[in-house]
């Protein structure tokens, strides 16, 4: 599904150049649930941004679902993001003046799905995350865990190939974190490919594979016995 070869990325900071990713080789099969771990500054967020086409790579190649991702203009990148990827952010990033169901429907709007179908689909995904009764509520009326579940429903609504979650539990307490991870595991069980960036060991253990980043290189890449989150909920 994802194929990365010899990926380099550096940032210009004034006259200095900061080499963040120093040759990453990495691939993800369909249906995997991968945790990307590392301390801050290890390059894990940069890697995720490149995977999410939010940032461009300097060197190397990136293939997503057999499509080479290279030299995309903004329009093309937007279309690919919409088609291939679903995003879950640490700070939820819901649009605060739109209700839960409108937030979930937003990627479908950019896919030019008709309003009625959009509404139906959005409600279906809200139901999957257990928030159907909250459909008409604004984000400000939801708890942190509920917001993240709305965000996950929004990421899933476009039926992406890969779900990218950047510290999805970073702003949540441990109980809600496990609820969110339970949801992510269920989505993965249904066959979806998911990448989770985290620095929490227990969250990483709930994935099927852990990739450790340190100073811009992968230092460890191992399969793990998945801890089910449902037992903590």
């Amino acid at each position: 599904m994802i194929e990365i070869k010899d990926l380099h990325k550096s940032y210009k900071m004034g006259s200095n150049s900061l080499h963040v990713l120093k040759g990453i080789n990495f691939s993800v099969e369909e249906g995997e649930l991968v945790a990307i771990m590392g301390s801050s500054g290890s390059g894990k967020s940069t890697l995720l941004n490149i995977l999410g086409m939010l940032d461009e790579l300097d060197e190397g190649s990136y293939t997503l679902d057999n499509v080479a991702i290279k030299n995309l203009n903004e329009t093309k990148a937007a279309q690919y993001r919409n088609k291939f990827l679903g995003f879950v952010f640490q700070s939820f990033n819901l649009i605060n003046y739109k209700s839960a169901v409108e937030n979930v429907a937003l990627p479908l709007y950019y896919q030019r799905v008709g309003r009625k179908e959009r509404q139906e689909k959005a409600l279906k995904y809200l139901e999957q995350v257990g928030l159907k009764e909250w459909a008409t509520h604004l984000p400000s009326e939801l708890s942190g865990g509920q917001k993240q579940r709305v965000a996950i429903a929004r990421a899933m609504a476009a039926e992406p190939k890969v779900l990218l979650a950047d510290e999805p539990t970073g702003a949540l307490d441990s109980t809600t974190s496990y609820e969110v991870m339970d949801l992510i595991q269920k989505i993965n069980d249904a066959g979806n490919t998911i990448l989770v960036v985290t620095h929490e060991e227990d969250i990483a253990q709930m994935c099927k594979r852990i990739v450790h980043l340190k100073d811009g290189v992968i230092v460890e890449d191992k399969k793990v016995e998945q801890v089910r989150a449902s037992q903590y909920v």
Partner: protein
Amino acid sequence: MRQLFDSDTWREIFQSIGKNRLRTFLTMLGVFIGIYIYIALSGAAKGLDNGFEKEFETVARNSMFIWAQTTSKPYAGFKTGRRIQLKLQDAEELRRQVPEIETLAPRNVSGVFGSSPGVITRGIKSGNYSVFGDFPEFTKIATKKIYDGGRFINDEDIKQERKVCVIGERTQKELFDVEENPIGGYLEIEDVSFQVVGVHKFSGGGPFDNDSDIFIPFTTYKKIYNTGDNVAWFTIAAYDDADVIKVEQDIKANLRRIHKVDPEDEKAIGSFNLGEQFKKIFGFSNGLTFLSLIVGIATILAGVIGIGNILLISVKERTKELGVRRALGATPTEVRNQILIEALFLTLLAGIIGIIMGALTLKGIDVFTQDVDLPYTNPTVPIPYVIGSLLLMVILGVLIGLIPAQRAVSIKPIDALREE
């Protein structure tokens, strides 16, 4: 284009401008005031214009009077100070020589310009009135409204030297009883009996008007006052597209030639160019229209810049939201169009409200000035001007909207999402 007619786009826009109502309102206020001032001012200028036009509607716009005085220079053997007398034959010559003349009416008068007024009697009533000797052409230059049942002097009156007259309203009041019908009645001018054929309405304001005058056929006048072919002055109207100043000069040059006056002698032939005076008056209201255009455009411009400014702030505030939209698949074009349509929509909505309020204000002024004696009638703004100002707003709205739209697009989704 697809985006413009998509109801979803409009829902998005209403949502985003509706979430900060006060700011949206204040944003629109600038453009609203601009277009309101423009409409109210230019409508008022137009009202003044119409008012002047109404005041002078009885007089041909490009008319003039020409009379003769005494020479101030010796010429061709004549000495200076010679009195010049205009003749009826001059009229024929002028019509031939100056093709721009549309109407030419020679006139004679007794009772003004120092000559003694005619004593008019009717039975035991009598009074002093100005008596004019006129041709029917005169009414083409200065319209006379004749009351029902009456008429002005016509060609037959001239040909047959009929003893008929048209009298003013005051003349009627003073010489006739209230219930008496003056038409067909008789009065005596210089002991000669004249039949009244019409009463003219006093319209007021116009420079030709008087309400205590009597018009008789030019040919009859000539006999009664024994003036021969003498003419006191010519009333002349040029064609609408003629240059009145040039026509005036041509006429005077011809008269100097006919009467053997030094071509350089400015004093021998006198004139009053009404057309030129009209030009000045209408120049004033044109100036006012122009001023209101400048003020209006400047204010609209200021308002539109205000919209651009507020949208710029709004884009900055919405950086994160726009980043999320980009991450969810909004293309730069879609983001840009959304901001542009917002700018355009706010500008147009404010503009249309301004036009409506401006029109209502003009209507109000019209109603209140109905009974006031002001040269102010029917204040309107021509539709092309309204459409023009709307077009201007659309163009300015789009141009100014481009700045925040470009700013919105230049934000990289990743930077937008990082911003907390």
